[in-house]
């Protein structure tokens, strides 16, 4: 296995930074991490790759991402207001493919949510397509493959 430790460190740092923003509800800054044409996807079918042609839990373009953030921030959503905090661990980061234009990364995520005093856990794989930029990366695509995407989830009022 040939490793590019510098790229791995950069990618890991970026994923940790994004995770920290989301756990601490830095949603406005999170929006700036994206390519304008980027897609945030949470599929219902873990074997599907034609995301536009299938039903997803979320498939957000830039406009939908802005609306999702607005909903979480504007104080009008009773569920968003009652979400406590989330704590997510991102690990097992692996660069699958890297060109100067695009880096494809896969990592593990465990997200914990405290919800009405009960702990809810969401394990999953996350796949990123990252565009190298001067000071880090921008996100071209983020696919969150929840382990129980095909089962019955609790409702979600945060961002994976």
């Amino acid at each position, binding site marked *: 296995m040939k490793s590019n430790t510098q790229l791995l460190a950069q990618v890991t740092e970026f994923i940790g930074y994004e995770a920290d923003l989301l756990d601490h509800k830095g949603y406005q800054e999170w929006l700036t991490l994206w390519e304008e044409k980027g897609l945030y996807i949470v599929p*219902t079918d873990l074997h599907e790759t034609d995301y536009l042609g299938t039903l997803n839990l979320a498939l957000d373009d830039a406009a939908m991402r802005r609306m*999702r953030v607005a909903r979480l921030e504007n104080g009008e959503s009773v569920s968003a207001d009652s979400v406590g905090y989330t704590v997510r661990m991102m690990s097992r980061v692996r660069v699958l493919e890297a060109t100067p234009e695009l880096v494809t990364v896969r990592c593990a995520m465990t997200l914990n949510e405290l919800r009405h005093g009960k702990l809810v856990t969401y394990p999953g794989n996350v796949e990123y397509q990252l565009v190298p930029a001067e000071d880090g990366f921008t996100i071209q695509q983020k696919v969150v493959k929840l382990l129980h995407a095909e089962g019955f989830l609790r409702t979600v009022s945060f961002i994976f």
Partner: protein
Amino acid sequence: MSELIAKTNIGQQAAGMVDTEHGRVRKELYSDPEIFEEEMDLVFNNNWIYIGHESEVPEAGSFKTAFVGRHPVIMSRDRKMNIHVLQNRCRHRGATVCEGRKGKTKAFTCPYHGWGYGLDGSLRALPKPEEYDGVFDKKDMPLESLRWESYQGMVFATFNKDIQPLEDFLGGAKKWIDLFMKQGGGYPLKVLGEHRFNFPGNWKIQLENTTDAYHFPIVHKSFVTSLDDATADIFDFLDGEGFVEDLGNGHSVMVMIPQLIDLEADLDQPIPERFNELAQALRDEGKTEDEVKKLVRAAHGTGFNLNLFPNVSCSMAFFRVLRPVSVDETEIQHVALGGEGAPAAFNQKRMRLHEHFQGPMGFGTPDDGEAWERVQKGSMAGTDGWILVNRGMTRLRTSEDGNPQGAVCSETGMRGAYYQYKKAMSTPSAVKSEEK
């Protein structure tokens, strides 16, 4: 025998907790585990239960798994294209013979000792059959089947062999199912996918919700804010001409947007701006302007929720299916719909609209879930108390079909469902008596 009497009493007690005169129900109906057990028999074993749409088993060999109450069942299509609804229980020692949401198979093979069943449930082969010589005949050991009937592709099954025909049970709801099916835009309606989620609360909280317009501007304020002004206006329906009509047998329709009752009417209206992209994509696919208008109008979905007792709703643009898991846990499916053979742009638009509001990550459902969870929690307060469903009960009129009809934000539909519930809970089980 004494146990039987006690059981009957629980049904009667639950029925007694529905106060039809004042339009209210006892809060224990959400939280008493004994009542829940009795509901599983009197409501879910004895009535027509929705299990899926025919388009979910499109080909010979297709199957999907579902539940009738707490019973796991399989809906399959055999080689002659006949549909079967089978109990998912091996006749040998009880293992499920089919797992997964859906798929295609030639046979159902039990993982435990390898009994093999056909798509019609018949027992085809088993290892070392000679040990059953003189014990039983294979032909007497099929997967047990349920009675099923369908209307407009919607498949309902039941354990109650003496139940009235499905179409009689649907009665006044059939007209609305017909209207609902027009949203294929000229193509047969087809299931495109589904969202699944659960909430810690009783199933009747969900049953009530599909006919509750009153909550919409409050609970879904953040969704309405996320819409463009023209669409937000459409969802501002509490002061409009909408209504809730009790259709009998526990079914009701809540019309929120009267202009969208019949999707094949008013086709000469201009295309709303937010559908410009879809319209252009359809034109690019070579659709005529008439077809474009029809498809765009169908893409909205209808302007009503049709609530069918006890577990399914044709809700604007999708099917909402509920399944009781325990007295305080309910699973819900939001089934996305499109047109079989319809242009890809049309079906994709329908899925994007579905993702926007529905499912565990939509802009609507999480807020509903929060409210329902709070209902379950709050209903535990006090040793005594009522849930009110009496809104609008003195302001009813008679609809053109002769049904009780109230304001769009009245609780007319909930009362209809609870009347049927009361009837079901006070009717002796046809399923149990047959077992004896």
